[in-house]
């Protein structure tokens, strides 16, 4: 083997060895990551299909935001973000038709199902009564798994979505 070929083989072996030791390397989506960083802080990300929902802080106020990841554009959520509400958790389905949001309003914590096409929010009651803490919407939008604080226990309720 010629020295140059030996050198290339050596580097390739080293790369394989390092990748095996270091783990799998996912590819950062640089453009969108820079865009999100420039816009301010974001937390509680929920990815589904081409949609990213998160809670963003804008001028000191937390609000739910939706981004079309493929087009790298924000998507409006009319009538979801109320000035008196503090969102705690958000989850989006794969068509971005429904969002499940846990939020505090007037000292109460509630689970809300937002339907984007209808621009409507429906409060989902906890039965038996409890305080929702986090919600995870099934990707097909047919069910919500909710973490609920109830009588000193933290439980998970599965709620069908009509």
């Amino acid at each position, binding site marked *: 083997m010629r020295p140059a070929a030996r050198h290339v083989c050596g580097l390739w072996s080293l790369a394989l060895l390092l990748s095996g030791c*270091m*783990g*799998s*390397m*996912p*590819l*950062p*989506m640089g453009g*969108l*990551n820079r865009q*999100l*960083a420039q816009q*301010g*802080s*974001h*937390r*509680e*990300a*929920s*990815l*589904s*299909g081409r949609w*990213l929902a*998160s809670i963003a802080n804008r001028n000191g106020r937390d609000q739910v935001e939706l981004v079309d*990841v493929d087009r790298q554009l924000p998507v409006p959520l009319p009538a979801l973000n109320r000035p008196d509400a503090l969102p705690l958790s958000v989850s989006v389905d*794969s068509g971005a038709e429904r969002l499940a949001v846990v939020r505090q309003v007037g000292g109460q914590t509630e689970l809300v199902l937002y339907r984007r096409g209808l621009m409507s929010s429906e409060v989902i009651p906890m039965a038996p009564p409890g305080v929702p*803490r*986090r919600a*995870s919407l*099934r*990707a*097909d939008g*047919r*069910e919500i*798994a*909710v*973490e609920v604080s109830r009588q000193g*226990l*933290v*439980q*998970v*309720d*599965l709620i069908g979505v009509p």
Partner: protein
Amino acid sequence: MGQMEDRQDPALSGNGQWLATLVLREGTPTLLLQEQPTGRRVPLPHLRGLRPHHSPALSWNGRYLALIVQQGPRRLAVVEDRASGRFHRLQLPMGLEPERLSLAPDARRLAISAVAQGRPQVHLFDLSGLLEPDLPPAQALRGPANASEER
């Protein structure tokens, strides 16, 4: 859910067949994966020794289970491929300590929530070079088989 034990941080697979939650085992959050609606528990040997577990997420058919685990002083984002048995420890950019994650149902993308330079940030990653997609079953075609023959 029938049992009087704390459980939190639920995640459903896209088809609803699988439910991941965190339960306390010896005081430490530990992932519990169950088939629905039977409640059958699925062993997860790769996750032993990597507790506490945080922030589980499942793909469409439950093939992939993503979560944050603890390995020594570090938090790691990992993905278990339940079809092949492969266990991916995701190598994130230097200094990115994951707090929560979200796996897209088709497993093509991952969102990591982390605190960077003192403020919460979301970082997106493309996983298409690492994982095969986990897609929903094909949906039946609607409408006539041959529209051009319709009169």
